[in-house]
């Protein structure tokens, strides 16, 4: 009798060794437990114990063999006590995993086809990679929109993943600007040196937080008015307070580094150029909320950010800034890194929890909310790096000083990802309340043919605004009132030579590909929406009945989908129709 049935396929020695190494590096002994012991610790207990190592184990298999083989799945299933059907279901969820033997043993060159790369000519890049003998995989946004078209190389045969553009020296467009707050260390402090971080004021905030105590930190964060920078703008103080109020269970701080919204690259640059700040602010969050377990869930396409964060964690731990009594605050806190594997949906917080736990990255129904039922069903504070970074100033300068920047209802500064047809694409930091026109000027004005056609605000999940919106003040409240959003900080400009129909059809295709498939409104709605737009593109027009259909589909996706992906899947499409960017636009 056995509680996990395995087929006859066996892993190669190399596959087994790769999985073993991945597990050992996380402190797991890769032994297959005897059946009696498995039965004894079956069910929930068994899952809880090892299931969350599934994702790292699948990464190891993919990297070693170039695919996840039946033998590999069986090996992982046996070691981690995961049914092979479920492990297969997880493996097939992610773009970076293959479950069919590869046609080649070389690396895979992922070329982005989303908006910024679309108008920058990704097809030329793909052609040149193919001409050089590389295997091209066209896929969704890689978070390098400021240097479009983007390329990410997924290693096989044990070779590491890498991004060729990471070899170029990094330059911040606003370098030297004394008004920078969140970006002030970038290009100044060495991201690979703890000493350099300390020399530039690093860890003063954590020490100060330790002196203040959790309650005072919670009060300061609440008083600052800081809200989440991922798009939902939930008040951080409320979130942290709710986690702090939970007692009697393990608690977690999760850094949501699965930045995947097309057009967004802010957190990547923060993690690559200022990794210690992410680590320090997570530790402050742990202190404030009483959580001892820190997790970084980072998208798989960010190898440099992953390496820098790993280096920062190791250096901080060695210096006593992580671990028991972290930085002498009296609070125990440590951080582990989990890599995603190519799934936009895993940036949704509850999908992220499922993914990290070794399940399919399908969002959970809310309520209950993460503050009470988050990672492993336990209280969890989840924030993205940009949100976390704001805490440094709030602690060191105080909430009142923090509120001197930005507006009454949108205090502080905002990171904005400028891409598309602007003079100097890149990451910018401005106080809330800056106008869209001033921001575009700061980024060198409209490039291309110089005539602005539209700006995509907030990414694929956001909406388009026209050239008449340059006076829009970029605050949470004003963008909402104008019917658009700051979202994750995407500001992507298009000139009048860009074919917006192509762009919008691709956005619809993005949602079709990235829907997790769990709920009907989004799984089918995203497909039907894309089909309707393809039909429109081929015909060159959209009938009134079809326009109504788009609205009817949008309504059910907004009203009845489980998560934000479905809620926003029609947003950019409808704004483009409303603005006349597509369908009624003159043919070119």
């Amino acid at each position, binding site marked *: 009798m056995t509680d996990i049935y395995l087929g006859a396929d066996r892993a190669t020695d190399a596959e087994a060794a790769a999985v073993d190494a991945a597990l050992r590096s996380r402190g797991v002994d890769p032994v297959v437990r005897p059946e009696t012991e498995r039965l004894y610790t079956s069910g929930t207990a068994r899952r809880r114990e090892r299931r969350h190592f599934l994702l790292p184990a699948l990464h190891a298999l993919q990297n070693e063999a170039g695919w996840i083989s039946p033998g590999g799945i069986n090996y992982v299933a046996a070691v981690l006590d995961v049914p092979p*059907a479920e492990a297969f279901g997880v493996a097939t969820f992610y773009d970076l995993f293959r479950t069919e033997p590869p046609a080649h043993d070389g690396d895979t060159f992922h070329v982005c086809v989303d908006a910024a790369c679309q108008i920058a000519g990704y097809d030329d890049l793909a052609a040149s990679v193919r001409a050089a003998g590389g295997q091209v995989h066209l896929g969704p946004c890689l978070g390098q929109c400021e240097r479009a078209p983007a390329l990410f190389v997924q290693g096989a045969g044990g070779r590491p993943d890498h991004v060729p553009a990471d070899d170029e020296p990094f330059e911040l467009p606003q370098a030297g600007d004394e008004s920078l707050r969140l970006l002030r260390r970038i290009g100044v402090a060495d991201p690979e040196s703890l000493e350099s971080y300390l020399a530039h004021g690093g860890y003063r905030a954590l020490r100060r937080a330790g002196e203040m105590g959790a309650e005072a930190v919670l009060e300061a964060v609440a008083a600052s008015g800081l809200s989440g920078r991922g798009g939902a703008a939930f008040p951080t103080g409320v979130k942290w307070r709710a986690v702090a109020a939970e007692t009697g269970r393990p608690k977690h701080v999760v850094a949501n580094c699965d930045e995947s919204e097309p057009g967004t690259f802010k957190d990547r640059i923060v993690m690559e150029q200022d990794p210690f700040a992410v680590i320090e602010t997570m530790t402050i969050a742990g202190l404030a909320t009483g959580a001892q377990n820190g997790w970084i869930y980072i998208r798989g396409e960010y190898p440099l950010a992953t390496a820098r964060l790993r280096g920062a964690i190791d250096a901080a731990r060695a210096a006593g800034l992580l671990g028991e009594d972290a930085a002498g605050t009296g609070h125990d806190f440590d951080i582990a890194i989990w890599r995603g594997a190519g799934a936009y949906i895993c940036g949704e917080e509850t999908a992220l929890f499922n993914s990290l736990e070794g399940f399919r990255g399908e969002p959970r129904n809310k309520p209950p909310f993460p503050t009470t039922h988050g990672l492993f069903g336990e209280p969890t504070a989840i924030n993205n790096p940009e949100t976390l970074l704001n805490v440094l100033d709030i602690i060191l300068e105080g909430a009142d000083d923090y509120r001197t920047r930005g507006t009454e209802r949108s205090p502080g500064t905002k990171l904005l990802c400028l891409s598309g047809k602007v003079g100097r694409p890149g990451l910018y930091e401005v106080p809330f309340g800056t106008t869209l026109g001033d921001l575009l000027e700061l980024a060198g004005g409209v490039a291309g043919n110089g005539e602005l056609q539209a700006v995509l605000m907030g990414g694929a999940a956001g909406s388009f605004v026209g050239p008449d919106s340059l006076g829009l003040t970029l605050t949470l409240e004003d963008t909402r009132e104008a019917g658009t959003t700051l979202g994750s900080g995407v500001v992507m400009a298009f000139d009048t030579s860009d074919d917006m129909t192509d762009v919008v059809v691709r956005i619809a295709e993005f949602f079709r590909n990235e829907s997790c498939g769990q709920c009907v409104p989004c799984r089918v709605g995203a497909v039907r929406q894309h089909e309707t737009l393809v039909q429109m593109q081929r015909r060159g027009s959209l009938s009134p009945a079809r326009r109504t259909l788009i609205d009817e589909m949008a309504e059910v996706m907004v009203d009845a989908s489980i998560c934000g992906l479905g809620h926003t899947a029609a947003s950019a499409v409808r704004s483009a129709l409303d603005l006349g960017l597509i369908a009624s636009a003159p043919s070119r």
Partner: protein
Amino acid sequence: MTDTTITETAVTLTIDGQPVEVAEGSTIHAACVEAGIETPTLCWAENLTPVNVCRVCVVELEGSRALVPSCSRRAEEGMVVQTDTPRVRHSRRMVLEFLGSGVDLSQADDLHHWMKAYGADPDRYGDEDHPVERVEEPVKVQDELYIRDYSKCVLCYKCVEACGDDAQHTFAIAVAGRGFDARISTEFDVTLPDSACVYCGNCVGVCPTGALQFKTEYDLREVGEWRPEDQTVTRTVCSYCGVGCNLDLHVQDERIVKVTSPSDHSVTSGHLCIKGRFGWQYVHGE
């Protein structure tokens, strides 16, 4: 499975203007049943944990921006719920339409009257030049016990739940793939005899659309001889062991064509093992 904790506390909510009192921990759906309000469901079943994925049971909850799934949302004191507003009707209609536009619902008998009631028109998508994408896969006939026809699958997760935590704990199947390409699958789509399947048939027992079907039923349907109106159902107790599972024998033309178990039965909760489910040929002297 549904939380069966017995609580003394009751909560009162308002549904369609009518006050309803239910035990604390009950769902809005249970409160609707209590109030005599019929609600369409697809992925919900009384013997399974709600997964709230089909969204056909959504209702309007005052104070909530989006609609909420009544099958899983717990009733709370003072909630104000509407089950028949234009928004609710629209979402239910669209969900049914979407499903009908992508898979074969011809045997999803429970859905037909709801599709009519909400005016769902699955054929209004695409046109002759632009056919819509549908799930179209050959029927998997891999043994003599049951078949799998995923072109009828609505991905309600019921079979996965019945195979896993909610009943059998065999975990032979899971959802694989993503988005519209998601399918119920064994690992690498190996055949059932090569998988962990123990042929309890509990997945077939919970399938709402005929995507999973007993081979006997499938064979009869293939030759046009499946006649539910001519069938009798006889309740008996399984003769194999001492557990006492109740069996419902579905009989057509004096032959057993299907065996189920009542989902509210205290012993089975509707679930059986391979013997009770499939081991009836001896009745016919075979």
